């Protein structure tokens, strides 16, 4: 061990004697490691961003028929939904289901293609809908009575009536030649930017956006009774409660539909952005990291090259050392220490530079990226740079050690 430190000291002395050359050799490794660490860190940051975005949309979860396990007749009934609503705790804001059809809405102004949603009362709080500005939503009573009522938004009111003050007015809705006269009991807000967007769609020649929400039990009156739904949505106040609520709902529904299979209902897998982008991002990061790794290999060849030059230059020194009693292993160790120190030190400098660059990118938020230093990348970079030293140092070191002392001494 004592002797091993001597070899390290010899190696350090020699690197120090050839400062300029050693640094230039190191530069290859430094650049390689810096790029690997920085690129992997940027990749990490991008992934974190996507992950955050994915988590942000998680206020609503959907429980659906398990299409893989169960026959397609299995549905969630209105009773199921009512039971869910009474069973789930107060963290759940709304439990709703809905089915949409296309129909026609007719007033004195004319007949318009309409997007008709058959819904349960909690659809009032459905994802991506706006709040009511006038009136109120239909109730459980309206559901059980199949009340002829509807909810429209301000944009629809403008199309059908020319103004938004239409509470209590009626419209005629037709689906598949069934007609019903519905009175308007609630009006949803249409935000100004939605009006702006609608104007642009109109200018592009797209049809008017007319939507009508009605109690799902009215489906009987339209000749197409709805027995139930293939999915039910749960809206929670706090997204942290979402998955727990979904699990409870799946349990309740599965216990109510037990005879039909082990797992008739499951939680719908949200379109997981991390699932979608994760592999792509990992792939891109891996690819760029690989390109950077090639520069490491080039750096390694630089180390080997300079070590070979060093062996040639120091042939006489090697001869002297061997004459004085250095063994093959002593010479190999000395030269190997040199190449490992050069590449290892290059690696450390590279990691520091990479960490610095990462911090700088995060600080300046270049391209909005918050790069985060990847610990595995740092560890791999350290091992890799020392490995480069060993792999590319072993050949020159063995070449040095294999010299016979008289040949080495004779040369000059």
């Amino acid at each position, binding site marked *: 061990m004592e002797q091993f430190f001597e070899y390290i000291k010899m190696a350090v002395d020699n690197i120090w*004697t050839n400062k300029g050359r050693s640094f230039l050799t190191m530069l290859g490794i430094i650049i390689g490691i810096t790029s690997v660490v920085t690129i992997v860190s940027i990749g990490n940051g991008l992934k974190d961003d996507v992950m955050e975005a994915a988590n942000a949309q998680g206020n609503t979860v959907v429980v659906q028929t398990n299409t893989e396990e169960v026959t397609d007749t299995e549905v969630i009934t209105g009773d199921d939904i009512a039971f869910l609503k009474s069973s789930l705790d107060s963290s759940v804001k709304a439990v709703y289901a809905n089915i949409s059809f296309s129909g026609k809405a007719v007033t004195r102004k004319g007949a318009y293609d309409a997007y008709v949603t058959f819904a349960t009362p909690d659809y009032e709080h459905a994802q991506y809908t706006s709040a009511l500005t006038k009136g109120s939503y239909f109730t459980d009573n309206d559901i059980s009575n199949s009340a002829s009522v509807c909810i429209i938004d301000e944009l629809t009111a403008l199309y059908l009536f020319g103004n938004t003050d239409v509470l209590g007015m009626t419209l005629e809705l037709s689906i598949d030649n069934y007609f019903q006269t519905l009175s308007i009991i609630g009006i949803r807000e249409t935000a100004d930017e939605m009006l702006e967007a609608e104007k642009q769609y109109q200018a592009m020649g797209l049809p008017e956006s007319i939507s009508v929400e009605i109690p799902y039990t009215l489906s009987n009156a339209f000749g197409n009774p709805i027995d139930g739904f293939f999915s039910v949505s749960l809206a929670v106040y706090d997204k942290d409660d979402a998955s727990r609520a979904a699990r409870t709902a799946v349990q309740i529904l599965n216990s109510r539909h037990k005879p039909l299979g082990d797992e008739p209902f499951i939680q719908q897998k949200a379109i997981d952005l991390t699932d979608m982008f994760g592999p792509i991002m990992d792939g891109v990061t891996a690819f760029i990291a690989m390109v950077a790794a090639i520069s490491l290999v080039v750096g390694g060849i630089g180390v080997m090259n300079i070590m070979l030059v060093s062996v040639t230059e120091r042939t006489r020194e090697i*001869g002297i050392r*061997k004459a004085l009693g250095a*063994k093959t292993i*002593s010479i190999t160790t000395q030269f190997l220490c040199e190449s490992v120190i050069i590449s290892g030190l290059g690696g450390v400098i590279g990691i520091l530079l990479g960490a610095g660059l990462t911090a700088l990118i995060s600080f300046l938020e270049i391209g909005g990226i918050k790069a985060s230093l990847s610990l595995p990348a740092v560890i791999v970079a350290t091992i890799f740079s020392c490995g480069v030293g060993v792999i590319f140092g072993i050949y020159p070191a063995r070449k040095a050690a294999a010299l016979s*002392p008289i040949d080495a001494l004779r040369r*000059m």
Partner: protein
Amino acid sequence: METLIQIENIHKIYNPGENEVRALDNVSLTIHHGELVAIIGHSGSGKSTLMNILGCLDVPTSGQYFLNGQDVSGLSDNQLSDIRNQEIGFIFQGFNLIANLDALGNVELPLIYRGIPRQRRRRLAALALKKVGLEARMKHKPNELSGGQQQRVAVARAVAAQPPVILADEPTGNLDTKSTQEIMDILKGLHKSGRTVIIITHDDDIARQTDRVIRIIDGKIQEDYYNNREDIHDEVEENNKSH
């Protein structure tokens, strides 16, 4: 006197076959503990080959070599490294100091390979440099020293590990007359203190200062005789007068 070196029927043949060169041709030789020997010959005579074999830097094509009673003719490279480290102190014509180590660092080298701990090593190296009169130059690099001083560092390196044999290959070949005599005085001093010293040289003046002269011509021992000690004494006197 006890036998230190015994070689028997040593051959060293380069390019075996049609153009073979017999650098050493059936050489047998015995050297005892405490001798001061000159091996003399012209360049190409085979004296350097003999020196390489005596120094365990090279192995003979055939023949046997006993060093301190141990047969070293069949040893591996690593074993030969140990023999060189423990039994032999080398002094070369070209000094062969390592340029980026100071005098102390150079003298330390054989002690490092012997595995002597740092503190003791430094003390031994410093002592050896003191013995050759360079205690004031320990931190000097070779290029900051004169030729004579460099060779004295080399002598210190050769004796620091206290090997039984000092093998000097043309130790004065690159030196002026004054430095030559300094080195010769040191070598003779080492001999007086009981060390075996073998000097390889082409210079009859150097050979005359030793006890025993072995002359090699064309790979064979031509002469092997003992100098008259009185002669040496007169020679030294004469030398001193002429300076």
